[in-house]
């Protein structure tokens, strides 16, 4: 079993090393990822949004729909944590009882 794991790891590493030879080099300005849409973002951010930090303007304005889905995902993760761990002490008095309420800051 241990040798099988090592073999899978080595196979994965060799495949990935072979794949890296087709990638663009270190810090190449003409790489396809650097020439597609990001020059538009950098050059238009002052004119469109008055926001010098390009990461913030892309995060909240140009790609705000993406971030909305992201916020929904982390809120769902918090709710899932509540629903998983509230279940174990539900037999005696219920955890959402009213007389235990103490939420004044």
């Amino acid at each position: 079993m241990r040798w099988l794991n090592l073999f899978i790891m080595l196979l994965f590493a060799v495949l990935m090393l072979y794949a890296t030879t087709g990638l663009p080099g270190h810090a190449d300005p003409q790489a396809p990822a650097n020439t597609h849409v990001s020059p538009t973002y950098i050059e238009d951010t002052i004119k469109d949004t008055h926001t010098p930090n390009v990461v913030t303007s892309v995060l909240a304005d140009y790609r705000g729909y993406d971030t909305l889905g992201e916020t929904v995902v982390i809120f769902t993760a918090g709710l899932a944590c509540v629903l998983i761990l509230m279940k174990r002490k539900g037999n005696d008095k219920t955890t959402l009882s009213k007389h235990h309420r103490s939420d004044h800051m």
Partner: protein
Amino acid sequence: MIKQHYQSIIVQTICSLLIPFIQLFALYVIFHGHYGPGGGFQGGVLLAVSIILQRLYLGIKISHQKFSPRLAMAFAAVGLLIYGLAGIIPMIFGGSFLDYGNLPLFWVHDAERRALGILIVEIGIGLGVFGTLVLIFDNLVGERW
């Protein structure tokens, strides 16, 4: 696990002095996200760090009286609601979804209106992340609330 006070006067004093500064820095990070590194995610995480530090040095029982986990859940939901409203209100005023140029702030310039929309959205993200992280910590500790 963490039920009583941490029995050291030095740790208590330093932590209670440190928490307001962490919260102030978190607010600075949220509101200064337009001009430097920062934004909603980082500021929300720093707010959550301040509450978790309070939970650690003050004990869970007393800290739950100061900041209840139910309040944290309300913060997370309100943050998500702020984000959703910042998306829906421009639709009412004739734009598309999440188009901050159509927010009803008629006295400012168009691009400045977009900057304000970004600020509103960052506040929503910060509250959401803050509430969610405090909620995960409270449920992992497993104290009844």
